[in-house]
């Protein structure tokens, strides 16, 4: 315990040093910029934003809300895709990972093919592909509302009482194809990596654990759910953390298909204000802080889980 605290202290110190260095760098750069006649400073954050953010939990209106609020809206969007991605990629990944250990040879083969196809091609291409596919959905006017509740169009998937009204569709809930393409792309791509992690973790389990479960007459499903996966999770946690952080950072590809994540909004702001250094400083800070929080949370979970792992 005390050891962990000392470790944390050391990390904190290191971050303080690095933070100082970074601050110095930014300071020097902005001095440099000023000397070249470029306006700088963080004052722009409170000026009204010149672009709206429509598809976000936090609506930002052009000319009314501040740049700071636009940043927050982007941050929410980034977190939204990240958490959705983590959730679904984990499920798909576990299923595929276990599929590679299936007794059915075809399932094993397909899962292997899936993993290879996904992880050997850049994510951006996957996202383009899914966006292209989603755009094949019918236009809003031609779409058929299934059970009157689900309307799948290339404008988005609308749930709960979708009503087509001129150019617009009103519904209880909807997701845009941009979000979906990013979401499906990230999910399926990351799931391939998670599948490999799961496979390795399950493989690292001692054979005796399988045998003991078998000898006790447990079914394969019970064995997986109660004996194998909980133990595999422990081995898999550190690499899983990396994958989760990967999802967060990969969400910056959103800009390619027009989903307004933090990076996309920052880019727009940067073009608008021309304050590249400041905007990028905010970007780095956001990604660094969230990543560190996520990995701290995962470490905490690891420690909580470690009570039985006195190896």
């Amino acid at each position, binding site marked *: 315990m005390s050891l962990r605290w000392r470790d944390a202290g050391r990390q904190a110190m290191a971050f303080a040093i690095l933070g100082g260095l970074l601050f110095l760098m930014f300071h020097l750069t902005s001095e440099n910029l000023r000397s070249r006649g470029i306006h700088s400073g963080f004052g722009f954050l409170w000026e009204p934003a010149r672009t709206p953010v429509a598809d976000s939990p936090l609506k930002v209106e052009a000319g009314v809300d501040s740049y700071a609020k636009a940043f927050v809206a982007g941050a929410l969007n980034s977190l939204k895709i990240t958490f959705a991605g983590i959730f679904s990629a984990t499920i798909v990944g576990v299923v595929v990972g276990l599929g590679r250990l299936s007794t059915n040879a075809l399932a094993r083969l397909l899962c292997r093919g899936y993993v290879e196809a996904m992880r050997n091609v850049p994510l951006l291409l996957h996202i383009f592909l899914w966006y292209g596919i989603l755009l094949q959905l019918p236009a809003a006017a031609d779409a058929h509302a299934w059970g009157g509740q689900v309307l799948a169009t290339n404008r988005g998937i609308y749930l709960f009482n979708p009503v087509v009204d001129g150019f617009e569709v009103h519904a209880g809930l909807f997701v845009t194809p941009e979000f979906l393409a990013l979401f499906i792309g990230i999910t399926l791509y990351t799931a391939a990596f998670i599948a490999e992690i799961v496979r390795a973790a399950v493989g690292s389990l*001692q054979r*005796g*654990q399988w045998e*003991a479960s078998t000898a006790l007459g*447990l*079914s394969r499903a*019970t064995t997986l759910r109660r004996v194998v996966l909980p133990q595999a999770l422990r081995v898999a946690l550190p690499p899983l953390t990396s994958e989760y952080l990967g999802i967060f950072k990969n969400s910056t590809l959103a800009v390619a298909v027009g989903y307004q994540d933090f990076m996309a909004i920052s880019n727009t702001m940067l073009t608008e204000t021309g304050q590249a250094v400041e905007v990028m400083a905010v970007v780095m800070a956001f990604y660094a802080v969230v990543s560190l929080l996520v990995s701290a949370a995962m470490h905490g979970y690891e420690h909580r889980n470690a009570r*039985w792992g*006195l190896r």
Partner: protein
Amino acid sequence: MSDILRIRNLDKWYGSYHALRSIELAVADQERIVVCGPSGSGKSSLIRCINGIESFQSGALEVCGIALKPEGGDLTTVRRNVGMVFQQFNLFPHMTVLENCTLAPTTARGMSLKEAQAVAMELLARVRVAEHAHKYPAQLSGGQQQRVAIARALCMKPRLMLFDEPTSALDPEMVKEVLDTMVALAHEGMAMVCVTHEMGFARQVADRVVFMDEGQVLEVAPPAEFFGTPRHPRAQAFLGDLLHA
């Protein structure tokens, strides 16, 4: 007399390695068998065939009246009637002792959790680890872990217990704990097949000793006879080594 286990002309190969060769063995209800033999002689393979953890290629095997064929059989029923204790304990490290003991009864037997816990506590008390019921395996000594493993197998109320060198991963002092427990169990009249080199145990509880070598059963005899006047030359050599080491 009803036999709880009947093995007839059983052969097993690992790839092209002939691991068990024409095994013939019958174990009566309540009978206690000790299997011994040099390393690699196929003791573990035999015992693992009995509850279907390993498959075999030819011959017949009947456990508790259920026939296991080379192509398999009603493994589930067999396994519910046969308990097994491993050399490496193989406890589930992420579950407490009590959870280890209740998992199979609740999921495979459909017992209620409460009932399963009551049964488990009783059995844990019998192997004298009841006070550790809420600890994790890693917090117990080896001897205690092995006793938990025994209790875990007993929780399924098996009619036949299989032990695969249950004491060889233990420190000398812990060996005693576990053997005492097994002796106590043996006197309750449960059938058991036990692979072990502990001659003291064999002498004390075994009805018969089975000696194996190169996948073959070479000699079957009551312990007094086997340890006193082994008849097969290989058995004589083996016992010589064992006493020396």
